[in-house]
């Protein structure tokens, strides 16, 4: 244990919630910036976040100049933070986010409150389990997400089934194959409801090479089994129904930000990302709260989240020094294309005379479907400020520079983003 919550005080300058890549990067960078009165709260009994149970490579190239497997990367991050004197309290769950940064916590010693001048939410992301996917059928044992499987395999050395099927073809889906192999579990099939692999197409070879049936254009329609899963029925593009015998179902991907605390605190949520609505500095609708890392959107790499965390430290530092534009005047970023799934940040704060304006520098976009032949446009008061030809695949990172609003005339109309 790094520190115990015995050392928790009643107030801090900055409280960081979550000790994954984003949270630890923020903490480390704040230390470097000389903001010392900080603490990282971690609800698990070990620091490091999701990479702890991602037993695959590559992690860490961007931040540590070498490649790690997830668990080793998590250890490296935690060690780096420790060396700089970052305090992390484990087994500390934030129960509610109060107005103005008053946090209610639960620790093994019971309920606790602390006050922060700024709070950074780096609570990360999780996969969508079976229930909200509305998959028909019975509810026997052996149904889980890839994350749950990975944590069982890598953290506890447990094996929940022998011959599961894998639903989805995101990066994590292929990582689930690796986790299965690590534990001696033999997946029987991998299903993707679309016609192409969601992750990079060559990965589709991976299951095939291992003798795992790789079924594109195929979706799961129901699950059978009393105590343990006994099989699933799947449907392909031509309407053919097939029964597959298996003893488990791994639902992979469909990531969703872990933003429940924010919802309950009435911090505004973007229905498209399911994460908080932020401005270009990562500030939420209550500007005491900052957010960074995968809580912002589904889903980015550990390295990306780390970088976001570093930037967030600078924004928090500037905010403490009152150097950020106020949130009183904000432009809304208006996505008018039905092809664009989400845009982050969703707001731009503007105040004349402030030197810091562009914040995180880029809008992050994702498309719902593959797009080709059109261009991405930024419009303000009907004037085009950006236009670039673009082709993109769904679920891939697309970036557009955030314009320098100090150089253009602005009022409070929406900033429009379109693809046409």
């Amino acid at each position, binding site marked *: 244990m790094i520190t115990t919550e015995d050392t928790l005080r009643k107030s801090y300058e900055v409280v960081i919630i979550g000790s994954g890549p984003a949270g630890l990067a923020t903490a480390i960078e704040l230390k470097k910036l000389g903001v010392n009165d900080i603490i990282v709260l971690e609800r698990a009994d070990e620091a490091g976040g999701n990479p702890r149970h991602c037993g695959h490579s590559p992690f860490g190239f961007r931040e540590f100049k070498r490649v790690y497997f997830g668990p080793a990367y998590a250890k490296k991050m935690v060690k780096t933070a420790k060396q700089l004197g970052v305090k992390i309290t484990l087994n500390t769950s934030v129960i509610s986010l109060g107005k103005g940064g008053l946090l209610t916590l639960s620790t093994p010693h019971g309920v606790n409150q602390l006050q922060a001048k700024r709070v950074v939410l780096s609570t990360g992301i999780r996969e969508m389990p079976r229930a909200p996917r509305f998959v028909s059928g019975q509810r026997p044992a052996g149904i889980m997400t890839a994350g*749950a499987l990975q944590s069982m395999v890598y953290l506890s050395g447990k094996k929940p089934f022998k011959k599961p099927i894998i639903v989805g073809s995101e990066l994590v889906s292929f990582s689930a194959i690796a986790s299965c192999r690590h534990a001696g579990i033999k997946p029987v099939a991998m299903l993707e409801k679309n016609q192409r692999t969601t992750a990079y197409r060559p990965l589709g070879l991976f299951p095939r090479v291992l003798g795992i049936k790789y079924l594109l254009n195929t979706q799961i329609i129901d699950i059978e089994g009393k105590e343990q899963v006994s099989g699933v029925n799947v449907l392909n593009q031509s309407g053919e129904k097939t029964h597959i015998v298996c003893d488990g179902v791994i639902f992979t991907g469909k990531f969703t930000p872990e933003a429940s605390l924010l919802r309950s605190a009435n911090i505004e949520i973007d229905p498209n990302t399911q994460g908080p609505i932020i401005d270009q500095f990562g500030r939420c609708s209550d500007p005491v709260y900052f957010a960074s890392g995968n809580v912002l959107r589904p889903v980015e790499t550990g390295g990306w989240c780390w970088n976001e965390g570093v930037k967030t430290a600078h924004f928090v530092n500037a905010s403490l020094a009152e150097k950020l534009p106020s949130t009183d005047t904000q432009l809304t970023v208006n996505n008018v294309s039905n092809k664009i799934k989400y845009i982050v940040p969703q707001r731009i704060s503007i105040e004349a005379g402030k030197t810091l304006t562009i914040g995180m520098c880029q809008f992050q976009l994702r498309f719902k479907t593959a797009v080709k032949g059109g261009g991405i446009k930024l419009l303000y008061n009907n004037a085009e400020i950006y236009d670039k030809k673009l082709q993109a695949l769904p679920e891939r990172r697309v970036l557009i520079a955030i314009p320098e609003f100090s150089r253009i005339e602005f009022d409070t109309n929406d900033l429009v983003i379109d693809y046409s």
Partner: protein
Amino acid sequence: MLTKTFDVIVIGAGIVGCAMARQFTLEGASVLTIEKSADILDGASKGNSAILHTGFDAPPDSVEQACIADSYKEYLAIRKKLKLPLLKTSALVTAWTKEEESLLTGILEKAHINGVDDAELITAKSTLSKEPKLSSKVRASIYIPREYVIDPWTAPYVYMLQALQNGAQLMRSTEVISGEFDGEQWLINTSSGTVKGALVINCAGLYGDKLDALLIKETAYEIRPRKGQFIVYDKAASQLVDSIILPVPNEITKGVVVVKTIFGNVLVGPTAEEQKSRDDASVVKETLEALRKKGEEIIPALAGLPITATFAGIRPATEFKDFCIKTYQDKNYISVGGIRSTGLSAALGIAKRVYGDYQKLGKTHAPKSTIIYPENVNQLAETETRDWKKEGNEGIVCHCEWVSQREIKQALTGEMPVGSLAGLKRRTRVTMGRCQGFYCSAKLSELTQGCFKHPMAIGDEK
């Protein structure tokens, strides 16, 4: 094999069986309860809408109405001593069409006949002032101030726990194979050996008619399983609703309810689907989607909120509208069947009534002079002080439902250790939240190692 002859053998440890064991034990009878599942509450009792009904809309003069009314009073009288929670909400029977609106006066009259005198008909405006997030399409409603919400699993668990602490016995993973009444006593052959009792009470729920046929070669009813699917919204939704939003019921069902649970989630359901199977609690995608749509029609702000769970329960309905409680005097046998949708609300009343029927057989005991009340009742309700707020909770394991490690360890040990993962969920709420085990499966499989017949992990790695 137990050599003792019990006064009563209760077959089935659902909500009704648990209340029955408690009632008879406190009245002074020696009681053995047999349950075929690895844990209690594993049949019809595992899925319900967790409401403590006043019985305002039950058929007047029915057994059901009498049991609900009696049970309601009893629950309020004993709940503090048993450390059971109560969410004092209220209910609104909402009318959305002209036709439904015309039925409200009939429902109100029935409520008054049933002794629910404080029920009143209120306008759309008053309805919306009570529930501001309700769709403005509501036309009028009946306000029932004393319809409450309770913890659907802790309550029956504590009934059974109190029975055990006062001398009753419970055999789980024990299935009845056959049985014979020799004129004096019952010899019941089970999968765990033969047991003896002077009288048998059939509380077998979904298998009530089959158990009757097996033991007394006749039955007064036929179980017609009726499935009800539910969806559960995450905690943020609980800010949107304060009372129990009921529709105007029809002949078959009370209809789809929107209710804030005592755990701080929002439940939408159930459907009412007749089916043959007594154990197939499958959910169906299209039905779940329809429930979500229905929920959003009633409370538009539910749109887009995350759904944490979906489940289905099966009610033991019969060809009759009322409960089927029947004494077979010459066989020392009481069948308690067809407790279809108000079991949680009526269980304490049913147990009292059945004890009355038992006395009519000339049987009597000296009630327990000193009654033991459970000391440590874990509080899962958000209305109470949950373990995460207390010193020594050992840290939270399930981060969605805030379940502490100490709560899990306590459920796995003690007087009635849980026998299955499903039982552990009901006892602690672990994995019942939005992530469905993404964050806690590893820890949980370690904590439960060696505890269940069907373990979470079927083997250690490799």
